[in-house]
């Protein structure tokens, strides 16, 4: 057993004084409510703070409504990254590599670029918006399941090898995208850039309802399978002994991960380390790995983190566009520290 110690040690028998308080703060329900409360507070802050109009007037509500899109986008992105990372960790039996670190969103970028490159921006713009997004997502899902399905279901590769493969694939996809982008006409490049470099303040909100719908659907599937995922987390052999078709579950999960990553990336662009950070925080807060606990918590933690960061950057530092940069910077640092302290396990 090489499980890293990620949770608080079980509290020793508490003394009479303060024991009730500790029992309350230690309970899962309390922690989930506390994290959710932070998320709700930050969301309300984003909606109403610094609103120039008089509260209650029509102008006030118009501004609040326009900010709803940002909050909605953040919620969808937080959901996608949080759930995708946790279920990816489960089926790959590690707590370090995330879909983004292994190049899932680089794959998204190269597919977007290739579509514009081979079919031209005109054809893409002419086709119906939703159908196009659906088609792109399908291609992304097919590629991701093939590639990563092959990586994770074949002979058991070491984490070092997977990390290396992921980094190389990410770089390879990146260079391929850059190469094709150089050959595009400026107008095509412009259209492509608009799709690739989304950010939270300026995301294309027309896809938001569809993104939310996909999240609800994927969320329902994952939640229904939460016990199966608990078994899959025990590894191929134990899961097989317990009557779970391990390979099928891994492939299904990788497809769901690809769906979530493409939704998130199409809304706000790549965020490499966000999933890693929120999954880490979640394991710390929850203690156990039971999916009935980690899944709700990771959504709450991801939403609280992203909403709070957005609120602080937008209303305190007036630098809302920088949010991915800051998250990547801090997340990358935490990732490095974690790697250096715990090693690859």
């Amino acid at each position: 057993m090489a499980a890293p110690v990620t949770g608080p040690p079980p509290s020793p028998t508490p003394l009479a004084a303060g024991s009730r308080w500790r029992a309350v703060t230690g309970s899962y329900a309390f922690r989930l409510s506390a994290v959710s409360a932070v998320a709700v507070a930050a969301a309300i802050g984003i909606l109403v703070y610094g609103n120039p109009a008089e509260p209650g007037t029509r102008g006030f509500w118009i501004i609040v409504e326009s900010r709803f899109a940002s909050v909605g986008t953040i919620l969808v992105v937080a959901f996608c990254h949080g759930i995708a990372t946790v279920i990816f960790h489960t089926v790959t039996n590690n707590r370090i590599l995330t879909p983004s670190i292994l190049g899932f969103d680089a794959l998204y970028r190269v597919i977007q670029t290739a579509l514009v490159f081979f079919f031209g921006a005109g054809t893409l713009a002419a086709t119906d918006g939703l159908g196009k997004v659906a088609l792109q997502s399908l291609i992304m899902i097919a590629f991701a399941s093939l590639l990563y399905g092959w990586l994770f279901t074949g002979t058991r590769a070491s984490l070092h090898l997977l990390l290396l493969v992921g980094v190389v694939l990410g770089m390879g996809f990146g260079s391929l995208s850059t190469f094709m982008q150089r050959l595009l006409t400026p107008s095509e490049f412009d259209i492509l850039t608009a799709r690739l470099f989304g950010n939270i303040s300026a995301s294309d909100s027309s896809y938001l309802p569809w993104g939310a719908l996909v999240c609800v659907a994927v969320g329902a599937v994952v939640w229904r399978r939460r016990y199966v995922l608990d078994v899959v987390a025990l590894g191929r052999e134990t899961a097989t002994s317990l009557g779970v078709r391990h390979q099928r579950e891994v492939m299904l999960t990788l497809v769901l991960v690809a769906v979530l990553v493409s939704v998130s990336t199409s809304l706000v662009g790549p965020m490499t380390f966000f999933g890693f950070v929120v999954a880490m925080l979640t394991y710390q807060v929850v203690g156990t790995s039971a999916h009935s606990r980690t899944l709700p918590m990771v959504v709450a933690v991801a939403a609280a983190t992203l909403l709070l960061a957005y609120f602080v950057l937008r209303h305190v530092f007036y630098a809302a566009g920088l949010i991915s940069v800051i998250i990547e910077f801090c997340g990358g640092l935490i990732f490095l520290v974690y790697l250096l302290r715990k090693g690859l396990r």
Partner: protein
Amino acid sequence: MITLHDVAKTYGDVHALGPVDLEIPTGGLTALVGPNGAGKSTMLTIVGRLLSADSGRVTVGGLDVVTSRPRDLAQRLAILRQENHFVARLTVRQLVALGRFPHSQGRITRADEAAIDTALEFLDLVDLQRRFLDELSGGQRQRAYVAMVLAQDTEYVLLDEPLNNLDMQHAVSMMARLRRAADELGKTVVVVVHDINFAAAYADRIIAMTEGQIRYVGTPAEVITTETLTDLFATPVTVVDGPGHPLAVYYRP
């Protein structure tokens, strides 16, 4: 009954197993013994459907291990490998509860709780049930895995070297518990053991293998003899009369 018909397996060009034909009757404790690389674990993992054979057919309690529904199979047959690496962080009770998955699909019923309690008591883990697995010693963790397998409540239990990394005290109590599982719970237990004397002391049946072939099948009294063991392990072994069971002595030829 476990039957193997014409089962063979090769890794690359290394001939690992067979072809072997074998019948293991229902009930009792069967020990698979033999030198390293004899194919014991390969045979056990093929029977436990963790490894697919190149040819042949395996049935456990009448179910074909390749074509039967995984869930049906998991209610009849459980297998525990010697290495269980996973990063999930679970308490002993959570792990044992996962053993009920084939029956409850995760929604623990009152009957499941009872089976979990029984398994925890059987392996003397009641006091440790709230502890996390990564806080346990190797022997305690091994017991937790065996408790999970017992909670699965299958007629057939296969264990690949359950005594690995256990000290004298824990090895003895583990074998005694497996013996009780066969006697009191009526299970058909098949174990791979390295220490031939444990097989001599606890097994009803010994299956001895070398080089992917089954060489001897019989009761301990039939298999644990000077000639058989010397031939099997290719090293001089003297069998003496021990207290209650024959004892193989091989430390100084």
